[in-house]
């Protein structure tokens, strides 16, 4: 009974917060001279709805009228994929977001409020952008292949299988090293990780921008960019490889990356909740004094968490380059993916499972917001609505106390006290 009540309370708060965010957002929408309902319909349809979605019910069931026969058919919206499904795009956007959010979570779970994901993401991406082009070249050179197209199929296959793995590992190493700096500074010199990671982010962005405009610049294109990565380094999207005849994936560069994210999430969950190392870092988060007094090597736990965190962000960067962008273009480092990952982690309350839902929701809303502008609605409104929802979600404690106060008023103190009968204050056990 009590548990059910708790669950309802916990679930109702984010829903309530979202509705409140939309409600307050509608004031701004209205001020901008647009119909709020119309705006929200477009926001959700563009983010999550299938082709032809033009009302909120279309998010669940969509009706399609055949122009030739005039016949209307009904489809379950999330699986209806003609001309591609926005969810595919949302998942494509969500992939690096999930990894960045996992990266933030593992750091948070050691009591480190690291927000260095942006910098680690940028470095991982840089490593991938460079190696994705350079490494295959070297191998071709060694193998004596002049034109890559004429390389033997066996060589191609080996390269396709090994090169992405090698590049992702090295990008992970780069991210891990960068994150380690903040962990080391914290452990040895007690430098606040929030400050050190902000600074490290700024350094990484400058460094990557310099590399992009300097040594790694491919051509005189007016926006600086690196060479396109070799096909053997490419993590091919589903619609270009084995699922090329499935409509649902059309237009989305969603690929193997989402599986990598899924595997990373499962491994991370096991690590945090099932291993002794995870226990060490969770206790460090709960109370670092408790951990130290109990004999847990807290410094090691922190460093380990930071290494894993950095590696995950590095992988996120590499996947974005190898699977989606295929080259790094100036402005890539300013995408803010890493920071969005921090937001997702916070909204998901550090739950590995919740990160998936929050990341997809967040990506969908972003997508919807971008597409709003095609319907004459300023896209900034979309961003603002997302921000409002986040703001209201972060007011969880306030909502909780509101609920309690409401219950107190409606049911009276006695009722509540009986409901919440807790273990405290009961008779002490008698002992001889």
């Amino acid at each position: 009974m009590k548990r059910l009540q708790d669950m309802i309370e916990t679930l109702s708060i984010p829903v309530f917060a979202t509705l409140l965010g939309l409600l307050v957002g509608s004031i701004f929408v209205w001020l901008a001279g647009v119909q709020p309902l119309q705006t929200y319909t477009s926001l959700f349809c563009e983010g999550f709805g299938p082709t032809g979605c033009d009302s909120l019910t279309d998010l669940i069931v969509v009706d399609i009228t055949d122009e030739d026969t005039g016949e209307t058919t009904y489809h379950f919206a999330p699986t209806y994929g003609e001309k591609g499904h926005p969810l595919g795009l949302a998942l494509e956007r969500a992939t690096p977001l999930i990894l960045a959010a996992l990266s933030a979570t593992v750091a948070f779970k050691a009591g480190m409020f690291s927000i260095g994901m942006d910098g680690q993401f940028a470095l991982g991406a840089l490593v991938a952008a460079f190696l994705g082009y350079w490494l295959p070249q070297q191998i071709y050179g060694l193998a004596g292949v002049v034109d890559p197209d004429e390389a033997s199929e066996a060589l191609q296959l080996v390269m396709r299988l090994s090169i992405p793995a090698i590049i992702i590992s090295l990008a992970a190493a780069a991210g891990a090293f960068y994150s380690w700096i903040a962990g080391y500074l914290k452990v040895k010199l007690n430098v606040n990780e929030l400050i050190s990671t902000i600074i490290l982010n700024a350094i990484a962005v400058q460094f990557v921008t310099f590399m992009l405009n300097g040594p790694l610049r491919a051509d005189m294109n007016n926006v600086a960019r690196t060479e396109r990565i070799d096909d053997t380094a490419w993590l091919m999207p589903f619609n270009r490889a084995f699922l090329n005849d499935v409509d649902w994936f059309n237009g989305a560069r969603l690929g193997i990356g989402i599986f990598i994210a899924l595997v990373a999430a499962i491994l991370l969950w096991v690590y945090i909740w099932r291993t002794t190392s995870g226990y060490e870092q969770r206790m460090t988060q709960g109370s670092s004094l408790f951990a130290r007094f109990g004999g847990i090597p807290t410094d090691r736990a922190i460093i380990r968490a930071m290494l894993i965190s950095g590696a995950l962000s590095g992988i996120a960067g590499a996947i974005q380059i190898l699977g989606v962008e295929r080259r790094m273009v100036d402005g890539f480092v300013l995408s803010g993916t890493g920071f969005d990952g921090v937001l997702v982690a916070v909204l998901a309350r550090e739950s590995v499972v919740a990160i998936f839902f929050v990341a997809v929701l967040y990506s969908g809303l972003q997508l919807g917001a971008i597409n709003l502008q095609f319907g004459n609605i300023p896209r900034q409104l979309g961003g603002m609505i997302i921000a409002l929802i986040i703001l209201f979600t972060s007011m969880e404690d306030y909502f909780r106390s509101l609920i309690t106060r409401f219950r107190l008023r409606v049911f009276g103190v006695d009722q509540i006290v009986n409901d919440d009968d807790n273990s405290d204050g009961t008779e002490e056990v008698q002992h001889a």
Partner: protein
Amino acid sequence: MTTAIEMRNIRKYFASSSTLALDQVNFEVQPGEVHALVGENGAGKTTLMNVLYGLVSPDEGEILVQGKPVQISHPDHAIQQGIGMVHQHFKLVPSFTIAENIMLGVEPNQFGVLNSSTEAEAVRKLAADYGLPVDPNKRIQDVSVGIQQRVEILKSLQRDARVLILDEPTAVLTPQEVRELYVVIRRLAESGRSVILITHKLLEVKEVADRLTVMRRGKVVGTDDVANVSVRDIANMMVGRQVILTVPRTPAEPGETVLEVENLLVADNKGLPAVMGASLQLRKGEILGIAGISGNGQTELVEAIAGTRPIDGGDVRLLGESLVGKTVRQRRDVGMAHIPEDRMTSGLNMTTTLDENVVVTSYDREPYSKGGYLQFDAIRQLAQQIAKTFHIKSAAAGGNVRTLSGGNLQKIVLGRELEGDPALIIANQPTRGVDVGSIEFVHKTLVDVRDHGAAILLISVELDEILALSDRVAVMYEGRIVATLDMDEVNEEKLGLLMAGSSLPQDDALAYEEMN
């Protein structure tokens, strides 16, 4: 005669901890009386006074001052109604002088310009009026805790408090300072003011209060004249059952030396020396009590032995093995156990379960983990076994330990630390904030393990506890062990003087000289 304060049917529910902190509480104070408000920790004494002082708003009930109903929703209102409160932790500005602190917010000024000499003069007059001598020009950071408390009282009197709430006023004082405080309290009552004394020390109640109100679990158990009840009656009212106040114990039979501390040097958090050449020896089967006023290096001494603070010089040997440079885990492996001072932050992880709390000292060993993976069944068994042996209410199986009472929490720490028969047990404030029933249990357990051959280093700011448990007492003052006494040469007076470092606290002596 109208009552000074009357609180009727006060109720307060805390949603965050889902506890009914105050349940239909009725409380009244007459003018000119010293009214003791007693009860175990968590009984609701402080919450009730916070309601009166406007720090907590009640869900139901009303407050009457001088017979008139009033709304008190902010300390400013309370002060307007003539209610003053001296908190356990003083709210003074260390770098300001005594006069500046007392007149803070009501400074005498001319066209907005402060006049410090008038200020000092006003304070001098105030102090003389109430017979509470202070030197107005001294800075708070330079005077003793006793004087700081006096400044807090003067601050309330300056704002014309008719009712003065003192929250655990003697907790930080030496026995001599306590006696002076009692005189002050009596004098205030004689002048027609009411003093509400929040305390859990029963002897204090007998000594200074006229009437008392006992609270238990958010309810008032009874109000009576102090003359009508014995200390035993009060204790039984507080706990709700018969309590054994003294610890039954036989003389110690000490064996070989377990712990040796030699010329230990330790720095505090600011890097200043906190322990300056402390030496002590602890033998198997005895309890060595460390007495001292908080802040004389006890915390640093303990942390240096326990391994959470670096040793800057000297040596610590446990069973002949030097602990210098060893990690906490290595020290625990030699045979150390540690009951930390603050169970909420150091003793337990309040964000997790009983299971994860008890396994912290052994999580990386079989059977609690295998191949780097935790073995939850084995951990569960350990937790249940400890819960059973130590009578821990484990309604929170799988749930958070946060909802457990202070006594139960301390039993978890005790159970975990005593697991595996350690040779040395460092017990730092083992009963702080624990109810009387659990104090009894903790004390009995400590004596038990001593009888089974453990060496116990007991650190406590409660002199009563030191006297009740120790076989020998070491007094710590300004980072040194100034004396080690056998129990038969110890009395409270002697300890009090040693704890204060000299025959009389210096600040008081100076203040008296300047007044006369």
